[in-house]
């Protein structure tokens, strides 16, 4: 899979490129700012862009703006945004346009290479990846009238994996349950929370996140 890496730290880009190449990705370009990134996106035929949210010149949200632009102009390219902080606001902002091929992870997620590569692959293949911290924060959020508390532990695990953007197969194998049992869990979750069943896999990410944020 052809990938572009964008970050203003050359050490980080190199390190990330090595991790990715070790996992079999082809890093075809590195960009230190969004202008370089835009040029690479136009010239290289890639499946995925991995970029930092904070980029020169103002070091605020140039990366986010660039990510949204790439999504708009090249819906076929997946965009994985990395950040030192994760905020549900940005997650919704990014996923809101179309959750296909969008990921948002904490910058140090690659500490667990397996999980990280899994997320990269998901986004590169048109799925989505939401940082577990975003999900756990939203799930752990205290509410005055909390339907989440009605869920069993198992159902809560299923919900958080759904919110991270995992597919049914991935959830089933992660929790070591059969696809049929999983389907049943998902059905219960939807009815307990009063959610409309929303498509399969990553399509439901946005609905679940929005639910967790709003209620």
């Amino acid at each position: 899979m052809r990938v572009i890496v964008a970050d203003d730290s050359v050490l980080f880009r190199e390190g990330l490129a090595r991790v990715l190449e070790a996992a079999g990705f082809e890093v075809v370009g590195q960009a230190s700012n969004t202008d370089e990134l835009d040029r690479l996106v136009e010239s290289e035929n890639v499946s995925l862009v991995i970029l930092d949210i904070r980029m020169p010149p103002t070091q605020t949200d140039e990366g986010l703006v660039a990510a949204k632009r790439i999504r708009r102009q090249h819906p076929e390219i997946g965009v994985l945004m990395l950040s030192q902080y994760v905020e549900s606001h940005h997650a919704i902002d990014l996923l809101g346009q179309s959750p296909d091929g969008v990921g948002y992870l904490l910058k140090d997620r690659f500490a667990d290479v397996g999980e990280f590569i899994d997320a990269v692959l998901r986004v590169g293949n048109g799925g989505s990846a939401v940082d577990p911290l975003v999900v756990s924060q939203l799930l752990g959020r205290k509410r005055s009238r909390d339907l989440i508390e009605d869920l069993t532990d198992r159902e809560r695990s299923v919900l958080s994996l759904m919110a991270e953007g995992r597919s049914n197969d991935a959830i089933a194998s992660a929790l070591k349950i059969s696809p049929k049992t999983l389907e049943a869990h998902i059905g219960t979750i939807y009815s307990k929370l009063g959610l409309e069943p929303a498509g399969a896999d990553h399509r439901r990410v946005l609905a679940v996140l929005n639910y967790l944020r709003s209620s």
Partner: protein
Amino acid sequence: MTTLQRRVIQVGALAVVALACYAEALYSSRTWSSVLVDIVPGSSFVLAGLIAWSLRPGNRVGLLMIGVGVGLLTVDVALQDRVSRVWQPAGVLLVFISPLWAVVLIHLLLAFPGGRLVSRLDRVVVRSFYAVVPLAALLAIVAGDPVLGKISQPAFDIEVPAAGPIYAACLVIGSALVIRRWFLGGRARRRSMSPVFWPMVPITILFLLATVAVLGRSITVLATVFPLFLVALPAGILIGLLRAGLDMSSVGDLVVKLSGGLAPEQLQPALAHALHDPSLEVAYWLPAQEFFADLEGLRIELPTADSERAVSILGDPGSPVAALVYDSSLVDEGQLVGTAAAAVHLALQNARLQVQLRAQLEEVRQSRARLVEAADIERQRVERDLHDGAQQQLVNLLLSLQVTKTEALRHSDPETASRVETNIADLKQALDELRELARGIHPTILTQAGLVPAIRSLTERCPIPVEVTGELGDVRLEAPLEAALYFVVSESITNAIKYSQGKRVCVSLGRRSGFAIVEVSDDGVGGADLSVGSGLRGLTDRVAAVGGRLVVKSGRAGGTTIRAEVPCG
């Protein structure tokens, strides 16, 4: 002018009136009504002039009116054929002098109400008229019949070559000057000029029509109507003078208002009202800054001597209290301005002190705002340094450890791999802690996405339920306002969690009449106090630094509400 001179002029003027009446009665072959039409305008000018002169002895308006009246009557007398026949030189002399009444009239119109010709142009023109018009009369005598039997009225004298056009030119120029003065002046000047301006308009038109003589036979009609308008002038002038008396009473009203206590903001309107000049400005002297300023402390440049605006400096010129800037037409009403200024002197002094205080307060406010802003910028800088420095380096280190681990595994060195794995876990822990520290210093989401997402992000991390209601609108607030409100919310929530024992917190946001409002309330034990503890105190200062205010409601009954309002334009 001595009393004797005054008496002589007064008696002389009355004598001219009497003589004119006598001459008309004795020699006129015309009907009584036309005799009256001849006599009344001149006499009314003289009588009104005498009254005006005694009302305002220092004002030349009265004398000028007497001059116009005497001139008019002289013309009447001179026109009587038999007068000339009785004493021929008298006729010639009278005709020579008599057209001057028109020049005196123009002089009067331009000098009303102050009695002085204010602009240089007016002075030059009037002086040259005094020289040119008798010359024109002389021309008329030389060119025409010396006895001048044919002159019906000097102004209508179109049979005399040369003189007519000169009269016309004088009149056109004179009227143009009066109209110019009218249009250049503000409301105050127009008000003071109106008693002479409105009668002047028909007089000028009739005068011009007659002089150009396009109307042929109608001249006689005009000649009958013309004196009626002339009567309107002295009447208007007297009304104007009486109104000046009323103006003095408006200063009296001002004094009454002052005794009731006038706020500094009300002084300027009250003065403008008393002096009938809406354009009047009060400029306060600020000794520290050494300039004049308005109530807000903003600098005011005083007009130069040549401008249409006049200035009265109040107080000792070395260290003035204030200056009044007004329409220059009020210069004519020097006494009025002086009286009004004396009446408000003390109030102005008081207001000046307030302006000084406000100016100092504004300086302090700005410096406080700058301090807080500098602190905010410093916080952001520290956060950015952490982000781009320590955090980035630790992430890079994490990556490199990751690569090392992969290589160790590839070289079948599970022991090293496991040690590196432990390091990775420790490093991740350190990164998490550093991340929380940096977030506390300045949350990046506040700069990236604004106040509402930052507050929501805050509430998502709270150990008790926090409900966020309301909106702040689509347009983001300025950074110092966002920072102030953010820290109000974060500090208040922290307090609620730490001390209130409440079960839930509610954050409500709103934007009303130019204010952004944030309210944090809990259902805890209450008893929060602004005077105790530096937390709330610091928040109050922070909000005040951006021009807002913080209100804490926290009774023994329970529950605490902290409300911050900041002006957001």
